[in-house]
């Protein structure tokens, strides 16, 4: 993890110095009037290699892009947001999943596990533009290839994740 140093710049604003794992340093200066300056110091260098100056509005936009609000990197299999004990995860229904073909109501997700399905993104695997269904009803049937966005406490979510992935043996047995 990166380390962040904070320093007061009286009359100017505040400075945040982030040391990255690769040795580079990123320095962000937030001016009192809202302007942001971002400097890039390569490893071992005393002088900044480059810098950008942004208005308050621009900085907010860039900030939310970096934080991944608009686009989730494909490399990360699941996006995990942990707020205290609550987890919101993006999980894919696997081909041979135990829950494939069953509906939300069948499984009693909310009643039994306290898990709420926030949204379902369909047809992700087929390369078409994902079609999202927000807040699906209890009659929604889990289909392999769909991505489920669900919220719940940590233990239950781990369980749910298992349900979506394995279940191969169980299905064979029945």
């Amino acid at each position, binding site marked *: 993890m990166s380390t962040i140093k904070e320093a*007061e*710049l*009286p*009359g100017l604003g505040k400075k945040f110095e982030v040391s990255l794992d690769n040795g580079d340093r990123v*320095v962000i200066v937030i*001016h009192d009037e809202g302007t942001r300056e971002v*400097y890039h*110091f390569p490893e071992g260098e*005393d002088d900044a290699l480059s810098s950008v100056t942004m208005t308050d509005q621009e900085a907010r936009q860039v900030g939310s892009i970096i934080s991944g609000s608009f686009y989730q990197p494909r490399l990360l299999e699941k996006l995990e947001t942990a707020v205290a004990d609550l987890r919101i995860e993006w999980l894919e229904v696997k081909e041979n999943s135990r829950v494939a073909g069953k509906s939300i109501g069948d499984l009693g997700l909310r009643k039994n596990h306290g898990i709420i399905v926030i949204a379902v993104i369909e047809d992700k695997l087929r390369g078409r533009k994902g079609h999202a269904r927000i807040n699906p009803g209890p009659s929604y049937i889990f289909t392999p290839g769909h991505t489920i966005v669900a919220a719940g406490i940590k233990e239950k979510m781990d369980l749910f994740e298992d349900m979506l992935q394995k279940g191969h043996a169980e299905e064979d047995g029945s």
Partner: protein
Amino acid sequence: MSSDIILNLGLAFAFISLAIYISNKLKFSSIPFLILTGILVGPHAPEIFGFSTAVVQRTESIDLLSRLGVLLMLFYLGLEFSAGKLAAAGLSLFKGGTVYVGLNFLRGLAFGWIVFQGWAEAFVVAGITGISSSAIITKLLVDLKRTANPETEFILGIMVFEDVFLAVYLSVMSSLLSGGGDVEALEIIPGIALIIVFILLVIVLGRRIGALVEPRLPVKPAETFVVIVFTMLLLTAVLVETIHIAEAIGALLLGLVLAETVHSKRVIQFITPMRDLFGAVFFFSFGLEIDYRLFGDAVYIAVGAVLMTVAGNVITGLLASWIAGYNSKRGFNVAFTIIARGEFAIITASLAASAGVNSTLPAFAALYVLILAFISPVLAKNSRNIHQAYIKLIQLITKTGVSEG
């Protein structure tokens, strides 16, 4: 008659706008441009082909606005200051800052005494030459894209340190000069002690004093808020005048008190545009006063003071940053950046002139600020090259030393 007053004011503001516009285009501080414009269009303006460019008169209304400008600038200085910020700055800044401010002041005092042969003048000159302009230097750091550098924290810390020093200095100066040069030590010492005790009290007990004022300020309607703050400012100025403290100091002290309340950010928001507006009038009207034909000795004094400031500042700046634990490269950046002088040099000179210390002081201060305004950005920009030259010089000296040995 009333239309004439408005005409004069309109002309004054036209020139003020022009000066600020040009200075922004050239990426320069506006202060020297405002003074210069004041000199060129004021009552002592030059005559070109028989036409005098003296188009702006120094009227009562301009005087009033410029006086408000000084009040607002010092009020703002107080507001910006916070004891918490100073405490957070740490020990290295405290040591470096004390050395820097102390040595600079002593150097100014010595220079002033040598030139003017009088303690009152020496004290004023020390103030003019000792205190850097935080406005110019902050702007310089932003323009040079050095805000992210480690030494910038130190530079800005010194600025805060100087502001504290300035508060004490101005209070002492105002009581020194209120005697009109005829100084009876016993008479003024209680006054000075009182102000210093008050400032220390505000710094130590600031939050408590603020807590007394805080609930009594109505916040909701912006109109009420701004009117009440402005009234407090004016009444404080009058009030302190009755106990022989300069009105500017009253504004500063009020700022210090309000800085510790939750309203400080809001007050700053309201005050900043007013300060910019009236502050500009102050610098302009400072120029109106100056007759360039009477510069005479002031030129030599100003040039001497500039040389002394640059040399002295480089030494004290290097020393201070060495004490604070920065390497020589950082030290050079510090030393060559904090040379700019501006608003407070002019305020000091103007306060001294109004107390009747020495008539050459305003001209000296104007020239001094003017010259430094042009020199200091160049020095700051090239601090890196100067450092490299210094390294080469050191190498040359050690090499020749070795070969001789």
